[in-house]
């Protein structure tokens, strides 16, 4: 199962990818912003984990564009961000994000959110 990990911080991408490997997901592809993520997204990607604040294209903008594509309309999108005020969370939800993790996060929270979004047979 392929994960697309989108974050402008190389440190955060590495932490997320390592966390995914630890819970059994080793197939990952990385992008540094929303534009790069759109270029790398294809139907083989089954789960997206994205940051919000990024250059060129933010995580919410990326999610909106992704939702408008036939191959991205239903892929689970998990936002992992430092933004945590109510208005921001609602904005992310309106953009099409399926769940939300506040940085700094623990691997347990990441696993819980992924499990909740994946079909029972996917993991």
């Amino acid at each position, binding site marked *: 199962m392929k994960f697309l990990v989108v974050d402008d911080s190389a440190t955060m991408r590495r932490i997320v990818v390592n966390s995914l490997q630890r819970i059994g997901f080793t197939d990952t592809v990385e992008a540094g912003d929303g534009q790069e993520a759109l270029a790398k997204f294809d139907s083989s990607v089954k789960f997206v984990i994205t940051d919000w604040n990024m250059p060129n294209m933010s995580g919410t903008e990326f999610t909106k564009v992704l939702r408008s594509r036939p191959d991205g309309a239903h892929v689970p999108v998990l936002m992992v961000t430092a933004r*945590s005020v109510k208005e921001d969370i609602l904005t992310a939800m309106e953009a099409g994000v399926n769940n939300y993790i506040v940085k700094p996060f623990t691997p347990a929270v990441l696993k819980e959110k992924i499990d909740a979004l994946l079909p029972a047979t996917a993991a």
Partner: protein
Amino acid sequence: MTSPRAHEVLYESEATLRLVDHELHELRHASHPDPVRQPGLEDLPAILERANTQILNVLTRLRETRAALQSSAMEKLQSTHDKLKEVTSATEDAAINIMDACDRASQMVDELEAIDTAPEPDRTKAGEIRGTLRDEIFLMMGALQFQDITTQQLNHASSVLVEMEQRLLDVAKLFDANGDASQLTGCTFDAIDQGTFDPNATTHNAEGRQALADEIFTSIKAPAA
């Protein structure tokens, strides 16, 4: 980028200076009035009284301008100062967490070595220690998330400095309208892309903030995956 408050300050300052200019012009005119009628000593008290009133008005406007400038700038600078303090504290917390995890990992390596050198090595216990060791290493990795958050805090601080610089330039230009503006703008810093950081980014109370996100996503049905 100049905030509405900064524009207001600039407007007030410019209005004040125009008032000063106008009054000086009037005073000059009053000292060389109608050539037919030369002012006499009897006009002097009225001129001085009028000048005094206008100078007081000008000083009041200047004080108001200074107060507006001071309040908006001080507020921003205080918030930036707080952010920088938080960066220091987040860095220190992460360093301590990583050091603690290193200490525990080192102890586990010692325990594994002791098991290996025992006449009858306890392989089950060694397996458990290796699992805990992996957890510790993973904990260290997680602690490095502070780097992303402190980068956002530093970007916020940097953006405030750029904004303050712009305000100072605006004020400087106002007082030197005929000066060489290019000299004033030559020292500007690169503006930080506002979209790349959250001004409220923090390492504090992650559990509480996560609980709020969970509550919102639970109470309002999120889009189905």
